């Protein structure tokens, strides 16, 4: 069932972003940098030319899928903190396909997507099962799954995917086996842009459809909003917890695919992908709605890809961009305040409009009389 997208959620997000930027400006000023210059290079770094735009999008692709994963779990009342591990496992499965499966391109893409979905889904479904069967809190379980993925990769990659001279990462996959695509690369004049963008957009549309229009989405949301009522109504709560975690895991697995076989072409060992956690911010700012996730991922993608340029061109350290992100999250989390503010603004406007209408009616009455 559709839960209306209130224009207020949009205003809240925008307010949070603006306040985050203002906080960033104050910080820059306080360390003696010129905030206008800082922002100028931050945004330029993300949007200066088509190649940079391509890179912004490439970063956003992964963020979109992770954000979608977290948002989807949120809707069922679950906190998926394990997107990083699910990314790793999904990415590993995709990397294996890239190394060993050779097929015509369309078929190949289907196989690699399926592999990433399976890997991530498996990593998500385990915490789901633990929660359903033994009531293990998903936050605990997903964090543990993160570390299991981290250490498994730590030993698996050197043992089976060792590069010729590299000790800390897997051997690179062939460009032709990656998600990069010549025509996309050409349009954007190089950079990291890849076919993942279509995967992300399709996933967003599909998830939005599931949540708004299907009985599955109805059940998931019912369980997420009030599991006692869902249980009473005959919805199988545990089954939905498992399904939700499986889908969330699958989405994060796809994110891993776009990151390890699209953005980059190898897997580093001993690194937990920080994007797995950035996804929480993306979901929060996007108010857990698929469309919201789309835009907030683009925004965060821009900050991520612009911060290096800002650092190179000015004295401003790249951490400022992270601080801005953190501040925005903070303001989004305390969005109740904005909601009150915008509600009262809305009301004032409505009352004014009504007064005006009333006056007009009165005037008309006089005119007629």
């Amino acid at each position: 069932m559709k839960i209306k997208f209130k224009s207020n959620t949009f205003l809240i997000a925008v307010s949070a972003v603006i306040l985050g930027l203002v906080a960033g400006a104050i910080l820059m000023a306080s360390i003696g940098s010129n905030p206008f210059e800082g922002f100028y290079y931050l945004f330029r770094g993300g949007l200066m030319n088509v190649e940079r735009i391509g890179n912004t999008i490439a970063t956003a692709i992964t963020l979109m899928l992770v954000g979608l994963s977290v948002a989807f779990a949120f809707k069922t009342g679950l906190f998926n903190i394990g997107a990083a591990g699910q990314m790793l496992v999904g990415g590993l499965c995709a990397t294996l396909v890239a190394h060993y499966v050779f097929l015509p391109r369309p078929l190949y893409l289907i196989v690699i997507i399926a592999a990433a979905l399976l890997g991530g889904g498996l990593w998500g479904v385990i915490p789901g099962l633990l929660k359903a069967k033994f009531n293990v809190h998903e936050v605990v379980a997903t964090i543990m799954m993160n570390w299991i993925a981290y250490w498994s990769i730590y030993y698996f990659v050197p043992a089976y995917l060792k590069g010729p001279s590299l000790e800390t990462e897997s051997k690179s996959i062939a460009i032709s086996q990656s998600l990069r695509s010549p025509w996309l690369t050409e349009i954007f004049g190089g950079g990291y842009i890849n076919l993942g963008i279509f995967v992300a957009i399709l996933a967003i549309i599909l998830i939005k459809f599931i949540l708004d229009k299907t009985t599955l989405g109805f059940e998931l949301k019912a369980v997420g909003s009030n599991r006692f009522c869902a249980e009473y109504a005959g919805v199988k709560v545990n089954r939905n917890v498992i399904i939700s975690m499986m889908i969330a895991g699958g989405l994060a697995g796809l994110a891993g695919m776009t990151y390890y076989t699209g953005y980059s072409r190898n897997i580093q060992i001993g690194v937990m992908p920080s994007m797995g956690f950035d996804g929480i911010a993306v979901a929060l700012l996007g108010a857990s709605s698929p469309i919201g996730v789309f835009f907030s991922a683009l925004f965060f993608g821009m900050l991520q890809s612009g911060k290096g340029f800002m650092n190179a061109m000015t004295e401003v350290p790249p951490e400022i961009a992270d601080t801005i992100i953190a501040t925005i999250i903070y303001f989004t989390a305390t969005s109740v305040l904005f909601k009150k503010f915008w509600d009262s603004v809305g009301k004032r406007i409505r009352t004014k409009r009504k007064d005006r209408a009333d006056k007009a009616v009165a005037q008309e009455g006089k005119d007629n009389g």
Partner: protein
Amino acid sequence: MSHVIEMLNIRKEFPGIVANDDITLQVEQGEIHAILGENGAGKSTLMSILFGLYHADKGIIKVRGKEVHISSPNDASDLGIGMVHQHFQLVQNFTVTENIILGREGSFVLDRKSAASKIKALSEQYGLKIDPNSKIEDITVGMQQRVEILKMLYRDAEILIFDEPTAVLTPQEIDELMQIMRNLIKEGKSIILITHKLNEIKAVADRCTVIRRGKMIGVVEVAGTSQAKMAAMMVGRPVSFKVDKKPAKPGKPVLELKDVNVMNIKKVLGVKNFSLQVREHEIVGIAGVDGNGQSELVEAISGLRPVASGTISINGNDITHISIRARNEAGLGHIPEDRQKRGLVMTAPLSANMVIKEYYRPPFSKYGILNEDLINKHAQDICDAFDVRSGEGIESLAGKLSGGNQQKAIVGREMALEPDLIIAVQPTRGLDVGAIEYIHKRLVEHRDKGHAVLLVSFELDEIFNLSDRIAVMNSGELIDVVETSATDEEKVGLMMAGVKSKEVTA
């Protein structure tokens, strides 16, 4: 006499609805002033404004003759205004004393001892009988309410607001609360009381302000006004308190319980060897004091709690171990005891709530895709039929409805399922007399269509008004089942205390 509280020409709008439209409330020093109004009339809203939870769009508030601006509960508290909410705000594993001084510690060092002795003194002064050292989780709901009262008194409140305080109490506790209110008045406090029960207003209130659909209808002296008159003022038409019904024509059994045993939360038997039949065209009422196994019994029938032994069947089909959905499909409807927890998804719109048991099957969905138009139409039909009032119609979030309208929505949804058996637990809790009349009528109608109704209520009036037979429960056991026409409230009262009917008649 002087007014302690004056709320003059108050207006408050919510999206799509004017909850308070030019309402004036004047409370005199030392009186119990009742507010009477239908579900959704705007009573809670008005009190929330007085207590600083909402802001009025228009109007002025005067406390002891002085105009004031109350923008938070703290402001209200400073002005000597206290409120007992319908849902208590207590920390379960804290003691009474800790709960009362919470947020009022004063200095860094908690002086529990002197606080406890002040609480003890207050408790004795007003006859509250509270032990300051017991934990909240160990005391009854009625006691918890008294802790809320103590909280107000501890903070030197002079004007006490009670929003539907008796909805959660047993008849015994209600009598005690009435006495406490009289004690409070004797000590110079003033009270605003919201209740749907006219006999309570009659029993304690001095004057009563009646509101309907957000507008003030008038103020009456309670002593000189009959209950029927007040009810008519509030609903806008005469209300009948008795249910018209023809004698039952019981047919074959719909619900059959055979030697059912159920464990309660504490893992001891909450329902013991319970056997009962509810037949077609019959209403069976379960009478008993709250906490004697009624909840466990209902949960066992509806599938929310496993059965330890025994069998439950509907229309001859064993449902003892099947899923909740399968039970619903076998013809079970259930108006749950806790509407906020079980009955509705508060953060979802009414439309979704009205199909929460049926969304998965045609016509509401096909191949897993929801049919929004039909869902909306279905929800609209229920809201029309049961007069569910809300700001934005079926798009309103369930949580934004007034308590009574939430209940009407649930009853409407369950009735729309046309179940062979409907279990109605406290179906009229928190409803205004007009709505009670309506829901009672619909339950009887349901029976007259040839269905079975199992009614659980803690109000003997309701049990006697509706039931064809009465089953009395005590400590998880069925004491006896009697024909309503062959018994009276006194006999049932004795059985509720555990005395068998043979001994009663003897």
